[in-house]
């Protein structure tokens, strides 16, 4: 196969990939979005929830919806899910343990 053919194929393929990346991003905008508002909880947790909400909005909201993470954090079987979520927050992002727990508290409230 001639070198010119290989180069042309590579260029066309690259342009197609770029176009498909744009298509994927556009399609994603038209998928169903989860509700972003979180419910407010008891006054004893108000401070942590507000801090958690701010942290979530600043660090997580650009890429993740609240519903995505809040699912399963409330109810009889939520223990394992809470631990799983905590481990995920520890491995993910820039926050320290206090930030992680504040975000988790916010998500627990959101799941109710």
């Amino acid at each position, binding site marked *: *196969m*001639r*070198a*010119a*053919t*290989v*180069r042309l*194929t*590579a260029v066309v*393929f*690259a342009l197609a*990939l*770029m176009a*498909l*990346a*744009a298509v*994927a*991003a*556009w*399609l*994603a*905008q038209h*998928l*169903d*979005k*989860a509700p972003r508002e979180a419910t407010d909880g008891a006054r004893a947790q108000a401070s942590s929830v507000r801090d958690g909400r701010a942290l979530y909005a600043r660090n997580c*909201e*650009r*890429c*993740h*919806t609240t519903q*995505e*993470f809040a*699912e399963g954090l409330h109810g009889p079987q939520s223990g394992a899910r809470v631990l*799983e*979520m905590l481990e*995920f927050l520890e*491995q*993910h*992002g*820039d926050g320290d343990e206090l930030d992680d727990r504040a975000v988790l508290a916010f998500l627990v409230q959101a799941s109710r």
Partner: protein
Amino acid sequence: MRSVAWFSIFAAAVLGPLALATAIRGANWRDFGAGFGAACGWIAFALFAAEFGLVTRVRAAAAAFGSDALLLFHRAMAFVALAFVLAHLAALAPAVPSPFAASALERSGAIALWAAVILVGTSLWRRRLRCPYELWLVAHRALAVTVVVAMAWHVWMLIAPGETVLKVLVAACAALALGALLTQRLLRPLWLWKRPWELVENRDEGASTRTLVLRAIGHQGLRFAPGQFVWIGTRRQGLFAQEHPISIASSPKLDGGRTLELAIKALGDWSSKTVPALEPGARVRIDGPFGAFTPDERPAERLVLVAGGIGVTPMRSMLLAMRDRGDRRPVTLFYAAHRRSRAMFAGELEALQQALDLKVVFVFEAPEEGERCERGLLSTELLRRHLPADLRFTQFFVCGPAPMMDAMERIAAELGVPSDHVHTERFDVV
């Protein structure tokens, strides 16, 4: 059709992860910019993983495209993959990531980025950096593994706990890439050492070229088409084995394929130091045959072979095969070299004119006084003097230095040769 099928597999491997990620995670991409950046990241990861497949020496794929075309495409895709990494970064990262950042997400991204930059840069500028090929190859593989592992780690951290399908996909992509490398570098060499070849003769052909005559030990040898090449390994070091692609110079009918002749010109450390030192009795490893650079299965009324320097070795195989098969189709061989003393097999090729309908045209840049040859470089006018006007049913085979092959592609177009009738073999990709 074979090439379309193989290309489709490659495209599916690159686009599959993006499609899955869009379906599973797309709703989380808050705006077009974030989505585009994420999509570029997925494409970059899939491309770098798929790159391993392009150089895994799958014989069927090499036969469909030619091994040199796969290498050229592999090189081109590396640039494309790096471009997608940079697009991902531009869309999503507030600053250039640091490999020493506190965040594991940033660290993994930085490692992947810088490993990819060094990988592509050292491939592009290997000769300018005066890096020996063998050292470059070891570093290249290490960097490639680093890129894929760092990218997989980076993506893994972004996947939410419930997105098991994506986790499996990421793990599978990384595992397949690393598995391909392990198979090629360790498992296959171990298997090939069970089918060794023994050096019978190490012949000095002049012009800094040596011919290794190899005989199969304990197996039936190799079935190959004239013009194909093999990878020869001369040291038993598994992952660090030295392997080099060398065209087969002998006829497929020589000793029923149990004897091979490989002509090797001194061009680097291995060819100028290791090869001359090989003594009869030495065992080597042969992997092959590979390549689509062969007149077999390409119907033609006439063949035109254009060789420059060591590029004459596959042509020798083709001509010897034609002699052994009684193939009397007209053949014209244009052999370009600096002067006759640097033209390998010159006497043998002239003698073959008695056994074939062959015309050998030597093209010397600096011929000796009284030398009967064409002078200077290959040109459209030079070829026109020796070829008929109608070349529609002629197949051209070109092998030599890259500038010569580039020039021949233009010359063939000017001569009216259909583009799919011009076949080249390039190996100086790096």
